[in-house]
């Protein structure tokens, strides 16, 4: 059976199954039980599992993170939900100093099985304080797992793996992925954390991408195929731990790396990928690796800015062509690329996000 459901629904289903499986799982966050239920990802759960296990919380991101951690020490499995990852800036102390360290600083006597779902966005005038992708900061911290599935099946499988995992996991969802569809098995299953995934095999170049950039990378690869370029697309999935072996296998094979990440360039995850390639695939690299990222400035609210700010399939494909020494691009192939304003995932989307 090839059941197609959305990424958002996959998250809801995983949560539902997790809560049914283990009564220690609870879900908290601003708006979790409200009528919009975090873009539908927690729909009906409070009705099904009760207000004690599915609840709203005060606007107290810092302490509420600590509350999750403390409860995890007593065996609970909290899933904390944030409509925007930006709000986690208030909770860095709890996440870095307590969640990420508890296991090792107390010599493995206790662990913190907590999942923090955090949504990142793109476009629609969010402006500088509601649009960041802070994964690099979290991925720097030993003891934290950070994942960012791109496909609905992985969203379900990795959320289940994350809740089953004994360590704190930051689970990053891109808002533009919620409405993407794909095959998702009905049963419970785990997609392993720490493993990248080759979503499109190819031989000429490795496009290694995170989260929504995987979608852009696939679009770019499709367009490039029409120009005779065979790109491999690797979905990073796990920002930390990084699947160095898996990703480097691709880079060693193609000898070319385009690292795509929808976050700031400097000190971002794309740079780490390039550093790893320089260390681990030095001999095989045929051209200088390239980062495709957000520029090093703050998101501006004006819709016009989206066009300058967000890298797309076109950006990626241009870089690939340049890397392969093709100066001319085939206009035909661009028919394949998404047509919508730069600040909208598709024309059906009505703001505000």
């Amino acid at each position, binding site marked *: 059976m090839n059941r197609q459901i959305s990424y958002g629904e996959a998250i809801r289903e995983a949560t539902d199954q997790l809560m049914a499986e283990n009564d220690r799982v609870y879900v908290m966050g601003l708006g979790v039980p409200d009528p919009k239920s975090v873009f539908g990802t927690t729909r009906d759960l409070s009705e099904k599992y009760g207000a004690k296990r599915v609840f*709203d919380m005060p606007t*107290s991101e810092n302490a509420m993170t600590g509350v999750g951690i403390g409860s995890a020490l007593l065996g609970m499995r909290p899933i904390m939900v944030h409509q925007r990852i930006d709000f986690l800036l208030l909770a860095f102390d709890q996440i870095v100093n307590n969640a990420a360290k508890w296991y090792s600083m107390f010599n493995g006597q206790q662990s913190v099985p907590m999942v923090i779902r955090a949504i990142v966005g793109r476009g629609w005038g969010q*402006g500088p304080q509601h649009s960041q992708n802070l994964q690099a900061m979290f991925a720097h911290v030993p003891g934290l797992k950070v994942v960012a599935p791109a496909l609905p099946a992985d969203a379900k499988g990795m959320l289940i793996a994350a809740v089953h995992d004994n360590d704190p996991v930051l689970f990053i969802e891109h808002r533009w992925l919620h409405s993407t569809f794909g095959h998702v098995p009905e049963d419970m299953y785990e997609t392993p954390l720490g493993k990248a995934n080759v979503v499109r095999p190819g031989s000429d170049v490795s496009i290694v991408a995170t989260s929504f950039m995987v979608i852009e990378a696939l679009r770019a690869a499709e367009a490039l195929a029409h120009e005779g370029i065979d790109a491999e697309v690797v979905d990073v999935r796990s920002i930390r731990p990084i699947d160095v072996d898996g990703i480097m296998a691709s880079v060693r094979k193609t000898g070319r790396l385009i690292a795509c990440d929808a976050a700031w360039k400097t000190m971002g995850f794309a740079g780490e990928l390039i550093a790893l390639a320089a260390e681990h695939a030095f001999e095989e690299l045929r051209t200088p690796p390239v980062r495709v990222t957000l520029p090093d400035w703050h998101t501006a*609210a004006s819709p016009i800015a989206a066009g300058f700010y967000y890298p797309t399939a076109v950006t990626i494909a241009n870089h690939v062509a340049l890397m392969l020494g093709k100066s001319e691009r085939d206009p035909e192939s661009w028919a394949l690329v998404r047509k919508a304003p730069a600040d909208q995932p598709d024309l059906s989307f009505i703001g505000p996000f």
Partner: protein
Amino acid sequence: MTRSKYADEQAGTAAAPGLLAPPSPADSVSLWLYRTMSRIRAVEERIAEHYPEQEMRCPVHLSVGQEAIAAGVSAALEPNDYVVSTHRSHAHYLAKGGDLRRFIAEIYGRSTGCCGGHGGSMHLIDLSVNMLGSTPIVGNIVPIATGIAFASWLKNEKDVTVVYLGDGATEEGAFLESINFAALKSLPIVYVVENNFFSVYSPLDVRQPAARDVVGIGKNHGMAGARGDGNDAEQVYELAKAAVDHARSGAGPYVLELETYRWREHCGSAYDNDLGYRSVAEYEAWRGRDPIATLERRLLERGTLDSEQAAQISNAYAGEIDDAFAFARSSPFPDEGDFGTVFSTAVPGR
């Protein structure tokens, strides 16, 4: 009712033509409140009208129904006093005298906007009237406000800082940290808590214990404070005047909790009672307490206004608003080169 700096003339003495202009200090306080609220309402209703066109491509948080607080507090302020605010700052910006054209242009993402298109509706600023900015991370403007007041204190200046914050924002630790420091140093600041009973769709009772008392929390820092009806503009003005005078006199910070209600959806322009997060009866009860209608009734009773003048005022701002929208829509978008500068002092490197 005591007089403010705006009250050089008696109530009702402002000439009819003045009624058609934007509120000005020549009005009596109550008339000024009425005109200011009417103007804010007219502006926001116009935003709501056009918002579904998807040309204002940024979140908007309307304060329709909550105008009395912005008006009443602003009437108590001197021009040099400072104001900062949150995601829901349209009313605060306008009441402080923020430029209308640049506000609308900002929502339209144009280069003529008050942030040149960088900020959108959640980052309103007009330095010419000491509206120093607004930010949408809940609670994070509160320490900034405290720092502004601290700078006044350091410089021995008498300007008062007002920060508007929601009931939700008082749940952030930054609120406690800020009032503790403000009370420690006796800073000239007024924390205006607009309690509209909701944070997005979450009612108070899922976020705060029933007994929670934000004025009391202030008192336990030795801070003066008061609670009042945020839909009664004259009451707000009286309370704000006392608070601002207190702060300006050097007696220290003040917390003012004002109860009010948001009519339209949390973010966006529609009505959202269909979502079921609040009862229609509750909503209707609050609509019955419309701050503008309430004050209008009083002014008519008092003879400050007649009904023709009232109608005139209600319609007085359409032209100005037409102009602001036309200005915004005809203004250019920023260029690519207008983005990307993150430093004020350029240095080498990247």
